[in-house]
C-alpha cells in the first residue's frame, strides 16, 4: 500500500479550499468563513501526525515526496521536512487558522479574502517544504500576490502605496535570485544532461565544484532576496508600511511567517549550497544584524503608533535571528531557528492584540490610549504576557532564544575577533527591548483612562480562543525548549559540519 502523502495533503488542502470557496455564492459569508477555517484545520490536523512520523535522530529531509513534472528541464516537485523546516512548517499550520479566526470581523468581500488567505497558506507551506529550487522559487514569488492583494484591498488608508511598495521591493530582490537559480541550473546541465533543481543533489554534487568567486556571487544574489524579506537593515523600509497598512491577519502572517522565509532561505539555500561564501559573509551579516537590533529597538521606542512599534520591533528581533545564523555554529543556528518560532508567536500575538484593540477603539495612537487595564483586565493580562515574551523575560520563550543566540554568537569562530564586541552590542539590544515594550505597556494599560474608553468590552471567547494556543506555547517553550532543539539538532549539525568542512578545504 502506498504511504499516505502527509505533506502533499497538508500543502494542497488550503489551495483546494480556496478553489472551493471560489465556487460558493458570495452572500453566504458564514459558509465561506467556516470552509476557510476548516481547510486550514486540515493542514493543522496533519501537523501532529507529521511530527509523530518524524525521526528526531536523523539529519536530512524526511517524509519526502517526489513527483517529476518537467523531465525536460529536470524540475520536480520534491517536498520534505528536516529539522530546519519542521518547526516553521508546524508554525505555519498553526498561525493560519488563528489568523483566519481573527478575520471573522472582515465584512468586505469575504469570499476573495478567504480564498486569498488559503492560497497564501499553500504558498508559505510550499516555501518551507520545497526541496527543489524551481518549486521553491515558484512558491516564494507567489506569496507576493495574495499578500499584496490582502494589503491593497483590505488595508488601512495608505494601503495601495504600501501594497505596491511591498511587491516591488520584494520582487526587486527575488529576480536576482531567479538569475542565480538559472545560473545554477545551467551549471548542472553538463553534469546531468537535462539539468536539475534538486537541493540535495546540488548540495552534494554541484556545490563542491563551485569556485569561491562563483559562490560569492550566487550567495549575494540569493542573499539579496532573503535579506529584503527578513528584512535586514538597510532593506527594511518596506516593512513598517506593509505592516501598518495590512489588515490584522495580514500583519500577523507577514510577521510570523513571511519574514521567516527570508531567514530560512539563508539556512536552507545559502548555507547548504555556498558554504565557503557563507563563511566569508558571516561577519558582514552579523554587523548588519546588530545594526538592525539596535536601530529597530530605537525606532520602535520612537513610535506613537502601536502597530508601528510592533513593526519596528520585528526589525530588531529578526536582527537577533540573523545574528544567530551568522554565528555559523550549531548553538547559534539552533537558537536562531527557535527564535524564529518565538518571534512568530510573540510578534504574531502582538499584532493580533493590536488588531483586537483597534476593533474596539479604532485608534492605535498611544496619545489617545491609556489606562485600559481598568476596563480590559483580560486583554491587559494577555498583552503583558505576550509583551514579556517579546521582551525576552526569563521563563518565557523569547528569553531562551535570545540568550542562546547571544551565547552562540559569543563563541562563534566564524565571526572571529569581532564576536565578543558584536555580542555585547546585541545584548544592549535586549535592554532596549525592555524599554520599548515596557513603554508600550505603560502607555496602553496604565495611566489615566480616557472617558470614552470606559465602556469597552473585554476579550470575547473567540478572541481568547485565538490567543490561548499562543500563550500556551509561549510558556511551554520558555520552560521546556528541549524537544524543539532535539528535533533540529541532527539537521543543524549536518549543516554546520558542511560549513566547517568547507572552511577546512579552503586552507
Amino acid at each position, binding site marked *: 500500500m502506498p504511504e499516505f502523502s502527509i505533506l502533499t495533503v497538508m500543502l494542497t488542502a488550503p489551495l483546494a479550499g480556496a478553489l472551493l470557496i471560489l465556487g460558493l455564492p458570495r452572500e453566504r459569508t458564514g459558509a465561506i468563513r467556516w470552509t476557510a477555517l476548516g481547510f486550514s484545520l486540515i493542514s493543522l490536523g496533519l501537523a501532529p501526525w507529521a511530527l509523530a512520523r518524524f525521526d528526531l535522530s536523523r539529519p536530512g529531509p524526511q517524509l519526502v515526496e517526489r513527483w517529476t513534472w518537467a*523531465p525536460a528541464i529536470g*524540475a520536480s516537485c520534491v517536498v520534505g521536512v528536516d529539522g530546519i523546516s519542521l518547526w516553521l512548517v508546524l508554525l505555519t499550520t498553526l498561525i493560519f487558522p488563528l489568523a483566519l479566526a481573527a478575520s471573522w470581523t472582515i465584512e468586505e468581500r469575504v469570499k476573495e479574502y478567504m480564498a486569498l488567505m488559503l492560497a497564501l497558506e499553500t504558498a508559505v507551506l510550499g516555501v518551507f517544504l520545497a526541496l527543489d529550487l524551481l518549486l521553491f522559487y515558484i512558491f516564494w514569488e507567489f506569496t507576493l*500576490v495574495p499578500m499584496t*492583494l490582502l494589503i491593497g*484591498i483590505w488595508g488601512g488608508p495608505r494601503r495601495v502605496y504600501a501594497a505596491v511598495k511591498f511587491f516591488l521591493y520584494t520582487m526587486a530582490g527575488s529576480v536576482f535570485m531567479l538569475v542565480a537559480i538559472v545560473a545554477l541550473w545551467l551549471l548542472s546541465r553538463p553534469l546531468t544532461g537535462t539539468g536539475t533543481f534538486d537541493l540535495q543533489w546540488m548540495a552534494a554534487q554541484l556545490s563542491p565544484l563551485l569556485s569561491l568567486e562563483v559562490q560569492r556571487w550566487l550567495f549575494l544574489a540569493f542573499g539579496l532576496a532573503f535579506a529584503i524579506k527578513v528584512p535586514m537593515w538597510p532593506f527594511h523600509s518596506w516593512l513598517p508600511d506593509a505592516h501598518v497598512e495590512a489588515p490584522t491577519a495580514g500583519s500577523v502572517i507577514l510577521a510570523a511567517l513571511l519574514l521567516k522565509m527570508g531567514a530560512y532561505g539563508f539556512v536552507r539555500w545559502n548555507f547548504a549550497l555556498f558554504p565557503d561564501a557563507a563563511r566569508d559573509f558571516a561577519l558582514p551579516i552579523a554587523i548588519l544584524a546588530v545594526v538592525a537590533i539596535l536601530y529597530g529597538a530605537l525606532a520602535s521606542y520612537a513610535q506613537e503608533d502601536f502597530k508601528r512599534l510592533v513593526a519596528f520591533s520585528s526589525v530588531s528581533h529578526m536582527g537577533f535571528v540573523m545574528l544567530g545564523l551568522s554565528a555559523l555554529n550549531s548553538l547559534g543556528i539552533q537558537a536562531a531557528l527557535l527564535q524564529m518560532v518565538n518571534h512568530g508567536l510573540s510578534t504574531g500575538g502582538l499584532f493580533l492584540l493590536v488588531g483586537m484593540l483597534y476593533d474596539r477603539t479604532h485608534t492605535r495612537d498611544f496619545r489617545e490610549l491609556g489606562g485600559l487595564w481598568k476596563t480590559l483586565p483580560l486583554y491587559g493580562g494577555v498583552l503583558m504576557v505576550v509583551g514579556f515574551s517579546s521582551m525576552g523575560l526569563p521563563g518565557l520563550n523569547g528569553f531562551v532564544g535570545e540568550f542562546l543566540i547571544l551565547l552562540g554568537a559569543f563563541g562563534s569562530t566564524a565571526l572571529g575577533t569581532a564576536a565578543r564586541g558584536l555580542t555585547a552590542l546585541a545584548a544592549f539590544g535586549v535592554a532596549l527591548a525592555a524599554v520599548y515594550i515596557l513603554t508600550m505597556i505603560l502607555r496602553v494599560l496604565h495611566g489615566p483612562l480616557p472617558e470614552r474608553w470606559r465602556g469597552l468590552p473585554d476579550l470575547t471567547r473567540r478572541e481568547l480562543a485565538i490567543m490561548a494556543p499562543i500563550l500556551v506555547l509561549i510558556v511551554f517553550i520558555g520552560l521546556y525548549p528541549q524537544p524543539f532543539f532535539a528535533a533540529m539538532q541532527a539537521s543543524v549539525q549536518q549543516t554546520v559540519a558542511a560549513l566547517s568542512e568547507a572552511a577546512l578545504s579552503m586552507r
Partner: protein
Amino acid sequence: MVWTPLWPTIVLTAGALGLLLLEAFRRPGSAQGMAWGALGITGLGLGATLALAGEGPVEGFYRMVVWDRLAFWFSLAVLLGTGMAILLSRHYLVDHGLERGEYYAFLLLASAGMLLMAVAGDLLIVFLALEWLSFPLYVLTGFARPRVESEEAALKYFLLGAFASAFLVFGIALIFAGTGLTNLRDLAEWLERPDPAARTLVWMGGALLLVALGFKAAAVPFHLWTPDVYEGAPTPVTGFMAAATKTAAVAALARVLLTGLAPATALWAGPLALMAAATMLVGNGVALVQSDFKRMMAYSSIAHAGYLLLGLLGEPSLALPGLVFYLLAYAFATLGAFAVAVSMAGPEGEDHSFEAYAGVARRAPGMGAAMAVFMLSLIGVPPTAGFFAKLLLFAAAWEAGWTALVLIGVITTVISAYFYLRVVVAMWMGRPEPLRLPVRYPWVRASVVISGMGTLLLGFLWFLLGGVTL
C-alpha cells in the same frame, strides 16, 4: 511539387476570399454569420496545422518555403491570435457600428500572410508575406472610420510601414546584387565562404533587413509608430496586432537571422543585443508614465519585443523552445488583457484610462481576477506562463554569455511590475466615480476564459508534455 508548408496559408486565404465573395452577395443585415464563418476557417487552418505537426522538416515550392517544428509552433501562435481576435471582434463591431463582413476577411488575410511568414525559406517570401500581412492590417487599423484617431493611426502605420517595406526590398536587392541569391539556405552556404568583393553589399543588405523587421516587431529604435497605432486602432485589432503580428515579425527575424545569416552571427549579434537592451529599457521605462491602458499595452508590446530578441541571441537548444513558449504565453496574456479591455469599452465608447477601470473588480470579480492573472503573467510572476517564458529565455541568453542582457532583463522586469500592477490596483483597489461595468459579451468572456486557462496552465502542460525540442 511539395505543397505541405503552404496548406495553412492556403486554407486561410481561400477562406478569406470565400468570405469576401459571400459578403458581396449577402443580404443586408446582421453579419453574425461572418464571424462564425471566420471562426470556422481559423479552425480549419488550425486543423491543417495540427495535421502537419509531425511532418518535416521539408522544403517545398521550389525551396521557397519550409515546414519544420518552428513553422508549426509559429503557425499555432498566429492562429491562436487570429481565433481570439475574432472572438473579441464580434460584439465589439456591433456595438461600435462597425459591423461589416469584410472585416473578418481582412483579419483572415492578414493571418494568412503571417502563416506564410512562418514558413518563409526565401527572402522573396519574407517580403511577400510582410506585405501580405501588412496591407490588411493598415485597413483594419483604420476600420473605425470616421473616428479620427483610427484614421490617423492607419495613415501613420501605412506611411511608416511603407518605409519599412522599402528598407526590406532594398536590403534584399543588395544581398541579391552581392550573391545572386535569395534563398536563405543558399545564402547561409554562401556566407560560409563569402566572396570578399561582395561581402560589404551583403552586410549592408543584412542591416537593412534588420531595420525593416525590427520595425514590424516594434523594437527600439524603430518602435515610434506603436503607441499611436495601438491606441487608435479598434481594440480587437490592437490585440491581434500585439499578439499575431509580433509572432510573424519574430518568425521573420528567426528565419532571416538564424537560417540565412546564421554563419555571420558574430556580425549581427552585437547590434541585435543593443536593440534588445534598448527595447527592454525604453519599452518598460516609457510604459511607466502611461495613464491609458491601450498605450501602456503598446509600450508593453515594445518591451516584450526586447525579451523576445533574447531568444534570437540565446543558445539555440534552449532559446528556440523558449521563443515559441514566450510567444504563446505573451499571446494568451495580451489577448486576455485586451479581451477585458474590449468588455470595458461598451457602447458608450472607448475610454481606457486607468481611472475608467477603477473599482471594476468590485462588481465583476471574474473580470478583475482574470485581468490580474494576465498582468501577473506579463510581469512574469509564477506560476503563470509568463514566468516560465522569461525563465527559458533568460536561461538561454545566460548560457550564450549575454550576462548583461539578462541583468537588464530582470531589472526591467521589476520596473514593469509597477505599471502592470497599476491596472490591478485600479481594478481592485480603486474607488470608482462613477463605476463603469464591463459589458457581458459571451464571446469575449469565452476568450477571457481561454486566455486565463492558457496563462495558468501553459507552463505546467508544456513541461508535462516533455517540453519542446526544435
